[in-house]
Every structure is written in C-alpha cells, then in structure tokens.
C-alpha cells in the first residue's frame, strides 16, 4: 500500500467516525513512520475537537436577542453606505439645480450641453446680453413660459448676473443677487433634498408622524 492510499483509508475511517480496521492499512501504518504520525495527528485533531471545552455562551444572550427582536426594524446604514447616499443626494441636487437653471434660461439643447461640459464660451457671451422685451415671451426656447404661472421665469441675466456686469458690486451683494434669482427654483429642490437626507442619509430614526421611505 502507498502512503496516498493509506491517507484515503484513514480519512474514510474518520468520516465514518470509526477506527481504522483494514488489515493492509494497519500494516502500512506500522511500517511507515510518516503515516503513523499522520494517523496520530488526525486522531488527535478529532479527539481534541470533539472534547473541546469552549467558553459558554453569554448568560444574557436570550434576553438580548428577545430585546432586539422586540425592537421594530429600523433603517440602519453603515457609514460607507450613508456617505454614498449623501453623495448621491448631493449629485441629484446638483443635477436638478443645473437642469432647472438651464430650463429657466431656455438653453436646453446642444449648446447648453456644450456649456455644461465647459467646452464653449459662447453661452457665457449670450448670458451677458441684456434681454430684449420680447425675449422673455418669444424666445425660441422659452419653455418655462408655458409652465404654470406661479413662478414666473426670469431671464438668465436676472437669475445669474454675469461677473462682467457686476464687477463693481461687492462679492456679498453679487452672491445675494444670485441667491435671490435662484430662490424660486432652488427652494423646492433644496427642501426636497433636505427631507431626503433627513429620512435616508441620517435616517437612523424615522421622522415623527411619517412612515419613512420604506412605505
């Protein structure tokens, strides 16, 4: 018998949880020091594991498990997932703001796409032009004009005063103008995003009087 064959028979005996009884294998074990040692080792392992004295489970395990089971399931996110959700929310907000701004200005189209990608300077020049009286009504891309009247679309130059037009203004004043111009479109978006963050990103606990996002 070869050593490999001996090991196979040894494993089979252990798998049956019975001693090695094959005469040929026992003869090989007596003659081969390596296999004898292997058999000793396998027996030792089996015995030690079967008789292992493991530490006892904690006494309060049952109480802890039951307390946890009683607790209603809540949304719990790992820090990494929470960060991903916040980033996703921020990206969504950014896209929404940029998109609404472009729609409000009627710049949707290839030129706007180029502008967003930062590949064209022309839209900047267009932005500087003072709006003609007709531009707000008859401009070819005046899509917002068809929208509900509650938020009147403002010309681009009103929403975002260009730097050249406002070079003389203090930075704080210019920023205030920008904020005032953007408010009608950003307020609802920001409100929605804030709500989203409260419920999902920071949502260890559900907001009161709300069912939470899992509906």
């Amino acid at each position: 018998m070869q050593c490999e064959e001996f090991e196979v028979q040894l494993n089979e005996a252990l798998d049956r949880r019975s001693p090695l009884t094959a005469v040929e294998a026992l003869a090989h074990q007596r003659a081969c020091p390596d296999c004898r040692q292997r058999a000793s080792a396998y027996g030792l392992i089996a015995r030690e594991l079967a008789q292992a004295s493991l530490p006892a489970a904690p006494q309060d395990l049952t109480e802890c498990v039951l307390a946890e089971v009683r607790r209603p399931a809540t949304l719990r996110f790992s820090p990494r997932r929470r960060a991903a959700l916040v980033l996703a929310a921020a990206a969504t907000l950014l896209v929404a703001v940029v998109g609404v701004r472009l729609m409000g200005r009627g710049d949707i189209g290839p030129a706007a796409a180029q502008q967003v990608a930062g590949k064209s300077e022309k839209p900047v020049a267009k932005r500087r032009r003072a709006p003609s009286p007709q531009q707000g009504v008859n401009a070819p891309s005046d899509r917002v004009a068809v929208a509900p009247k509650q938020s009147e679309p403002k010309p681009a130059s009103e929403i975002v005063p260009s730097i050249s037009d406002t070079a003389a203004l203090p930075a704080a004043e210019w920023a205030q103008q920008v904020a005032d111009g953007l408010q009608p479109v950003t307020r609802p978006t920001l409100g929605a995003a804030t709500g989203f963050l409260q419920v999902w990103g920071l949502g260890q606990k559900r907001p009161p009087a709300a069912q939470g996002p899992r509906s």
Partner: protein
Amino acid sequence: MPDDVPELVRRCLSGDEAAMAELIDRFRGQVFGLCYRMLGHRQDAEDMTQEAFVRALRSLNRWDSRREFRPWLLAIAGNRCRTLLASRRKVPRPTGEVDYLPDARPDRQQQLNLAEEVRLALSYLREEYRQALVLFHEQQLGYAEIAEVLDCPVGTVKTWVHRARRELADHLRRRGVLEETDHAVRRI
C-alpha cells in the same frame, strides 16, 4: 433534531416569547461554538451569536419545516461570521496569535497544551476548511448537513475536511506537537 422544533417554531411565529427563549436555549451552545471556532474571539462570537438568533427569529417564516432546523440556523450563523471575517481582512490581524514559528523551548513538554495548539492551528486554516472541520468533529454534523449549512456539494465538504485535517496535522508537526504526543496517541 428534537421533534418538537416545528411546534416551537410555530409558537415563535405566533409571537410566543417563551417559545423563542426555549429555541434560543436549545441551540445557543452550538451556534456560539460555531461562531467562536470561526472567529477565534469571544466577544465577536457573542455578537455574531446574538445577530444570528435575531436574524433567524425574524425570518423564521422562511424556514422550510420539511428540512432540518439546525443546519438552517447554523448556516445563518456561518454567514454572519463570514461577513465579519470579510470586514476583518481590511484591518490588520489581531494580536494574540502566536507567530508561525517552530517552538524549540526545552520545557516544551511541560507546557504543552494540546487544546491551545489545535485552536491555534485552526486559526490558520482557510475559513471554509475550518468551518467544515468544526462542523464535522466538534458539532458532530454529517456531511449532508454540513453541505446544507455551507451551501455547497457534499463532495466539496469532504474535500475541505480532508484538506483541513492535512493542514492541521502539518501545522502541528511543524510546531513539534506530534513528537511530544506521539507516545500518547497511538490509535485513532
């Protein structure tokens, strides 16, 4: 498997906390033993045992009563341990584990602690090997049950157990444990 487990589960599903406590008490030793062997760390094992029971109780309705309960429960515990081990790999291995060097102390014979050596050797095994070996020898599960726990074919489990034995034996030999105990371990 105790015959009344399906009845216990039915009571658990109806919200009977006494039944839940009985179910936990019945399997706590096996679940904790598996977690402890897989993780080699008492606190982690306690946490994973608790998580495993919570998950099991919350998803009892998914247990197929035609199948054994114990492998189903141990599979949940094993999965929790694997998840923890996967996250552990991202941080350095905890200290407290002896370096993998031969021990040449002259008083080795007096200080020999077989259980500790086996525990140490187990910690060097691949997770699948360790889990299969522990389930077979320590938890006394059959190969079919282990296959169910580990969600893999019976043949694979056998291979893992055989490889685990070999690696464990090699480790013990390198540590000098077998020479010391050869006279005491003559037969299987």
